[in-house]
């Protein structure tokens, strides 16, 4: 165990619970206010929806294995991809991020729970009925106007299914807003004394940026959906051109939320990578402040790019230029993160466990999604590829190669903390290999399909695209198979895996300074910061010669082994400040 880990753990020994927290299985089926129960409720529920969404995707790819619409009817096909996309976005990636944040965030900042535990439970318990409601639409004719649900098509294609879709999304949006309020208040008000914003783990920064986006953007989607509902049920004509309405206004309102939604889906997992990479590279995160502030920059810029989804519809020329530039600029803070992660990996002592493999897989695939993101931001090129398989490929490289790889990375990383047991690494690596290969076989050829002329959302296509589509479908089956090693591994390890101990990865953030799983209210006493969250290797700092430190001019940051001072803990609440003092004196 390295010096910094010893320092952090010994400083927090008094804060640590005696016994690992145990829950009865029934607790997970109650309106429980414990953030850890809610976190697991979120994760298990959303994973079940992921499997359902995955089954729908497999059906879609089965249909597309041949050029003709021969597996399902074209109507059902439209419903399949509409519900697939809705589930994956609103019932898997977005709430999965909230699930990890629910479990980990209060632990990371040393809090006993979230700021509003009952609101937290309410936010979760909205999700299962909303999901079931959405799936029930298959009984009355599921929505088939795509997850964008553009009018006028959404107004004429199966009213019952469409209305169910709207209601389901309104519920999920409400859940999302309630969760975001909780995260913001928790981060602002419940950090332990001594944890300034710049000592806060980067996952918390990411959740802060995500929550801000949710609070600003989600109400606009709700407004759009309510107006669409009026058009659908009450005969109004906000978006219905037959009554003088404007369908383009819906697109503006929809994308005002739904583009930021991409960042709502990816930012939490940027945060996950910023935890997993330094821990498993045994190095400090490279450019802490740059990564933290770039999350905020992405959050802000994410709000002013929505019209790039509308370059081919209702935007005038000059507006297209504005949105092109703002969209491209997002590549800069995103690039800062990617390069900082690479610099963290470079020269480290990489523990290539499943969590780090998925994190590196994230970077490997997300970078392609980011590059094609800059491409589609360019108006002249976007005019060609908009609404084609190129965009399908791009969004899956961002949301599967990014968010889903991030979710898996987070699963492997925090599974020992949540369950007290380790996952099997061999099966984890098999899972990674199958997922990485299956993912690329499925989505890489889609770039070519789109460039060559295949539009998206079609049940039947030109036979000249048959071969590549077959490859995509085979990849999709491989991707479906890839989930089995994970499911088996998770279930088996949860009950029979080797005991994890409190801090199996020798990490420094506070969630690892309590028992696994943590007791109710997390810590027996208020934990303290004896080190920064990513101070790996700082103990040997005096022996490092010629290493470039960006913090050389910052006495607090360059305090080296005595970096306990950096946290500036409040002596009134610090458990054993004398211990830390003694620790640093010994080394001096």
């Amino acid at each position, binding site marked *: 165990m390295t010096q910094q880990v010893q320092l952090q753990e010994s400083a927090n020994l008094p804060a640590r619970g005696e016994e690992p927290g145990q829950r009865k299985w029934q607790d997970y089926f109650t309106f429980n206010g414990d953030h850890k129960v809610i976190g697991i409720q979120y994760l298990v529920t959303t994973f079940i929806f992921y499997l359902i969404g995955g089954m729908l995707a497999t059906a879609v790819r089965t249909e597309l294995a041949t050029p003709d619409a021969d597996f399902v009817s074209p109507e059902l096909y439209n419903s399949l991809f509409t519900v697939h996309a809705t589930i994956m976005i609103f019932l898997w990636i977005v709430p999965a991020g909230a699930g990890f944040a629910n479990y980990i965030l209060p632990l990371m900042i040393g809090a006993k729970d979230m700021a509003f535990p009952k609101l937290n439970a309410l936010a979760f318990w909205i999700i299962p009925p909303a999901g079931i409601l959405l799936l029930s639409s298959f009984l009355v004719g599921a929505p088939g106007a795509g997850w964008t649900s553009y009018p006028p*098509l959404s107004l004429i294609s199966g009213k019952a299914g469409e209305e169910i879709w709207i209601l389901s999304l309104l519920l999920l949006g409400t859940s999302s807003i309630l969760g975001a309020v909780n995260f913001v208040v928790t981060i602002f008000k419940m950090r332990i004394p001594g944890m300034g914003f710049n000592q806060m783990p980067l996952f918390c920064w990411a959740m802060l940026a995500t929550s801000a986006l949710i609070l600003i953007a989600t109400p606009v989607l709700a407004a759009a959906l309510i107006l669409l509902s009026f058009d659908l049920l009450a005969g109004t004509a906000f978006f219905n051109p037959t009554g003088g309405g404007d369908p383009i206004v819906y697109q503006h309102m929809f994308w005002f939320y739904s583009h930021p939604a991409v960042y709502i889906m990816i930012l939490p997992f940027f945060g996950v990578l910023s935890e997993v990479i330094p821990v498993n590279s045994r190095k400090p995160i490279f450019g802490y402040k740059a990564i933290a502030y770039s999350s905020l920059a992405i959050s802000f810029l994410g709000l002013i790019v929505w019209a790039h989804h509308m370059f081919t519809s209702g935007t005038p020329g000059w507006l297209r230029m504005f949105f092109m530039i703002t969209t491209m600029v997002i590549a800069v803070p995103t690039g800062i993160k990617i390069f900082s992660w690479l610099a963290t990996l470079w020269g480290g002592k990489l523990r290539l466990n499943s969590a780090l493999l998925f994190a590196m897989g994230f970077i490997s695939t997300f970078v392609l999604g980011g590059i094609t993101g*800059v491409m589609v931001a360019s108006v002249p090129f976007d005019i060609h590829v908009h609404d084609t398989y190129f965009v399908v490929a791009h969004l899956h490289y961002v949301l599967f190669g990014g968010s889903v790889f991030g979710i898996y990375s987070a699963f492997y990383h925090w599974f020992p903390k949540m369950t007290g047991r380790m996952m099997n690494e061999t099966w984890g690596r098999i899972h990674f290999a199958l997922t990485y290969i299956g993912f690329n076989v499925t989505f890489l050829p889609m770039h070519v399909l789109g460039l060559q002329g295949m539009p998206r959302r079609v049940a039947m296509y030109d036979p000249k695209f048959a071969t590549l589509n077959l490859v995509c479908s085979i990849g999709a089956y491989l991707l479906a198979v890839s989930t089995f090693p994970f499911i088996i591994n998770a279930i088996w390890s949860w009950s029979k895996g080797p005991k994890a101990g409190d801090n199996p990865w020798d990490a420094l953030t506070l969630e690892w300074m309590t028992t696994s799983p943590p007791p109710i209210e997390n810590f027996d006493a208020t934990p303290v910061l004896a080190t920064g969250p990513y101070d790996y290797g700082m103990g040997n700092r005096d022996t490092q010669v010629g290493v470039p430190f960006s913090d050389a001019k910052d006495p607090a940051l360059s305090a080296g082994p005595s970096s306990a001072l950096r946290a500036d803990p409040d002596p009134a609440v610090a458990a054993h400040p004398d211990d830390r003092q003694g620790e640093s004196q010994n080394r001096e």
Partner: protein
Amino acid sequence: MNIPNSILTMLAGIGLTLVSLWYGQNHGLLPVAASEEATHVDNLFNTMMTISTGLFLLVQGVLVIAAVKYRRRKDDNTDGPPIHGNIPLEILWTAIPAVIVLGISVYSFEIYNEMGGLDPMSSHDHTLNVAHNMPGAAIAAPLPGTEETASQPQQAPEQKLIALGVGASPAHEGTTADVVVNVTGLQFAWIFSYPDSGVTSGELHVPANREVQLNIAANDVLHALWLPELRLKQDAIPGRTTELRFTPAKVGEYPVICAELCGSYHGAMKSRLIVHTPEEFDSWVKSQQEVANREVLEQAVAVNPANLSEGEYLAPYAEDMGVNPQILEQLRSSHDHAAHNF
């Protein structure tokens, strides 16, 4: 022989640049470029591919090298070097992407302007033109060749809106296109009508090396007219007219695709773009006019549909088509209602 790291890095950089340059220009990912606009877009794409290839290989290379070279040795539980940051390096990797995206933005702007995306003259005729047909009912669309289809876009100077689409390139600003085609999207077909010659067709015929303007409208739901070989796409929006202006450069047959989800048979909403030589195009127009004249003559013997509303015109066929006559009556009402609004 021990080669210094700086030399290896330089060689890797040169190799990366060469591979990127080669692949960026030789990727072969795009279909044939059949218009002047397409060539511009392809040049832009090739530039982006060159930069992207370099960046992609750089990131993948770092990942692979890190995974191989820096993997933890067995029983080594020590930490790595405590490098927190490096300000010059961070400035470098902020500045370089910023300059790259700025460069791509300016280049995209140039290309877009060259294509006619910023044509200020194209704001002259874009009026709200509320569809007055039964939403979603393809049968309710104005029949090809009827007065309404042929006269679109409707002129109403007092209701100007901002232009939507791609207009004339700077070289052609202020001029009218050589060929104007009114395009109507409806579930699940494209109708092309030529106001100058009165021809209506299910396929888009245009002459090569002549400027063509498409005025695009939709009757029921959103559609998007996509011409992949021309690298052009524009949504057809109910209630608005949008435009595309381009100059086809290569004679041939190319697909016309609907790219915006428009219902269950969206995937089947296809047609053909046929780029003729100017002479062939003229003879095609003539042949179509002859066919149209014959049809008009035959219809005139029976009844002139131009004088009838859709409801009246369709009434005799309603039973055969399985349409309730009451719906047709509503159709007439909605038509009248829409007409009163404008």
